[in-house]
């Protein structure tokens, strides 16, 4: 029975935890932390159960909410694609929850349980969007995750309020476009269920309908705003770089990846390959947008002096990779895009966690915080190097394999602009991280200590300046190391992941 109900429990479990956390203020921060961990672990468990069943039966699970058959009721659909994204989201959320022990308590001394309630609510929204088989239900959960992310981001420091307010306006515009698109589809088809919509839209009389074309364009535009595709990305670096450490680790890897997943769902489940690449006039332009996003994102990242600002622009560039992979219109590109959702979720999480630990220990967000990092925080430094290697695309990290598929797909499609953008972006990323490592190795750590005015002593030892080791706390180290190991394991098992999961979700027509 547990297995049958797993699709609903993935989403309902964190929702209940969020409601209980709202009321659990008097029980203290430890209980709140425990409840959050319990919620995230529960989601991960049910996601794994559901994915296991999908792989065992080799067919999608359709879960009818309220026992109503679709399209009258709402259904959850867990197939190979949504299954792995569910596991990714719940695993990243669990790792971030473990990581949050110190930072969340320090950022929210008074309202930790409400902060955690929003945390669980955000994860509920992301999981719900991923599992949903109904375009309007997806919109409702999009609102839940967006709203809770506004609340979490506004808890950040200094100018976080202004950045979040801008994000709120832009995010609402994006959601409105998506809703408007659904409106057009509903008027023309009378249905909201994705599979039912797909069946109706594939009928010949609707192939040339202007309303449906514009509905599709509006939905995609809304999702692009949500996932910060160039040139609609301006809100992202500001909003994410000023967030609290835990908030950034939670939101930056997951929100944009789930938005990419939604784009894939709309493109290939609701609409079809033939429809998009034959009937939509602008579908050829997207590859150039994606190339521009990859290039401009990476070059902007190179120009940043603030660590998290740099990571945020990397996220913008990675969004370009995935968009390009989806729109080169072949199986290799699609595989690369889906694999990159997994890889990029992990590597962004890895980098944000490592940088968060550095910020936590030094109190600085500029690149100067990296000075002497290998002496002061050796494990964090190694995690950072693994994350950086994955962004650059060095084997055996997973970043290499996703880029391999993306370039293969682009080359098959003859999209040489995208191939060039990918290669140049990788080069720029390499330059950027070597610059960072140069500061880490050759920067003067003692200057930093004076700058941060921290109390712990440093003396002369054998003529070499010795810097006190001051590693991140264990609650941050464990999830960091697991994530970094995940990057390598995912890279080593690329063939299996592609064969057992992604290969099954390649849409018909490729």
């Amino acid at each position, binding site marked *: 029975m547990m297995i049958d109900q797993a699709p609903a429990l993935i989403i309902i479990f964190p929702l209940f935890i969020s409601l209980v956390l709202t009321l659990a203020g008097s029980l203290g921060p430890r209980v709140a932390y425990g409840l959050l961990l319990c919620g995230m672990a529960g989601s991960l468990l049910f996601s794994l159960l559901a994915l296991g069943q999908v792989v065992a039966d080799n067919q999608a699970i359709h879960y009818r909410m309220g026992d*109503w058959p679709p399209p009258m009721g*709402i259904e959850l659909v867990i197939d190979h694609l949504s299954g792995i994204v569910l596991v990714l989201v719940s695993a990243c959320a669990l790792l971030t929850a473990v990581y949050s022990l110190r930072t969340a308590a320090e950022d929210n001394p008074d309202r930790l349980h409400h902060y955690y309630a*929003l945390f669980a609510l955000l994860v509920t929204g992301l999981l719900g969007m991923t599992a949903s088989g109904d375009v309007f*239900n997806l919109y409702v959960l999009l609102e839940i995750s967006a709203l809770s992310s506004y609340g979490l981001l506004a808890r950040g420091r200094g100018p976080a309020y202004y950045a979040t307010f801008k994000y709120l306006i832009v995010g609402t515009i994006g959601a409105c476009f998506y809703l408007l698109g659904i409106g057009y589809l509903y008027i023309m088809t009378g249905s909201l269920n994705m599979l039912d919509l797909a069946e*109706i839209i594939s009928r010949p009389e609707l192939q040339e309908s202007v309303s449906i074309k514009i509905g599709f364009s509006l939905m995609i535009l809304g999702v692009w705003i949500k996932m910060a595709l160039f040139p609609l990305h301006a809100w992202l670096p500001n909003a994410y770089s000023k967030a609290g450490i835990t908030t950034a680790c939670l939101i930056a890897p997951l929100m944009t990846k789930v938005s990419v997943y939604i784009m894939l769902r709309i493109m290939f489940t609701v609409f079809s390959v033939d429809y998009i690449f034959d009937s939509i006039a602008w579908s050829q332009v997207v590859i150039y947008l994606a190339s521009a996003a990859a290039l401009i994102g990476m070059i902007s990242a190179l120009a940043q002096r603030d660590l998290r600002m740099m990571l945020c622009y990397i996220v913008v560039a990675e969004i370009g990779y995935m968009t390009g992979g989806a729109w080169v219109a072949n199986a290799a590109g699609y595989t690369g895009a889906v694999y990159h959702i997994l890889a990029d979720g992990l590597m962004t999480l890895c980098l944000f966690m490592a940088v968060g630990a550095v910020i936590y220990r030094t109190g600085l967000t500029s690149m100067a915080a990296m000075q002497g990092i290998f002496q002061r925080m050796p494990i964090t430094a190694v995690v950072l190097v693994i994350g950086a290697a994955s962004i650059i695309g060095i084997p055996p990290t997973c970043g290499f394999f996703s880029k391999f598929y993306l370039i293969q797909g682009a080359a098959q499609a003859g999209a040489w602009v995208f191939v060039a953008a990918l290669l140049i972006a990788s080069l720029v990323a390499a330059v950027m991280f070597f610059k960072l490592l140069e500061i880490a190795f050759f920067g003067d750590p003692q200057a930093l200590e004076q700058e941060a005015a921290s109390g712990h002593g440093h003396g002369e030892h054998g003529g070499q300046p010795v810097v006190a080791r001051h590693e991140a706390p264990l609650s941050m180290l464990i999830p960091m190391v697991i994530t970094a190991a995940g990057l390598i394991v995912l890279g080593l098992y690329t063939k299996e992941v592609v064969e057992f999961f992604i290969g099954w979700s390649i849409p018909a027509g490729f």
Partner: protein
Amino acid sequence: MKRLTLVILAICAVIMLAAAVDLPDWADPASPASTHLSPDFLEQGYGETATPNIVTVVLADYRSYDTMFEAVVVFAAALIVLVVLRHTPRKRRKMLQHRPVREGRDTVLRGAAQLIIPVMQIFALYVVGHGHYSPGGGFQGGVIFGASFILLALCYNLKFTIERFREQAVLVCVAGGVLLYAGVGAVCLAMGWNFLGYAGLAGILGVGEVMARSHGILAVEVGVGITVFSVMMSLYYDLASGGDLDEGL
């Protein structure tokens, strides 16, 4: 910049007009929206749920999962305003420079409030309870119920209202309403049906499956009503006093 905004708006307007070209006529009974699912809802709705108001049936039964998350959206709004605005130890600058201090001694206002508020509350309960038969339901009834408390705060003062309905109690209601909704779903799940399959309540309530759906709709509407009214109060408390809950409008 302003000119760019105008250009973008103009482009959007042209796109909207272009999209209207092959839309079906206004209120066309042969349009897909009226022929695809609506007939099924209209023909089967009453038979399956014993509830004559089809809007309520679609809202709280066929698409009950959406409605639960709509209630969660309302809940999230209250939580966010609380997290952002409510007074924290890191003392922020006061948001309201000038605060009206009112003693609430105005006889005419108090008299009017005493007359209106009980009627409003009874009517709110009616709107929630009568959602099965007439326009109404949890959202509308909850708004009227919440408005009655805001009227109390306006005609007396904020302190007077908070003494009668403490912030902690409001919070319990905010989460409790959604908890009731999701709890009904979870009970159905525990009874061996899918989440929010109200037919699972039949065994507990001792009625048939159809009647159980009708009762299930009422239960979730009450949950929505509790959340909506307490969220209105929570928002009013925080916004009217700049998050200090001491004095304000």
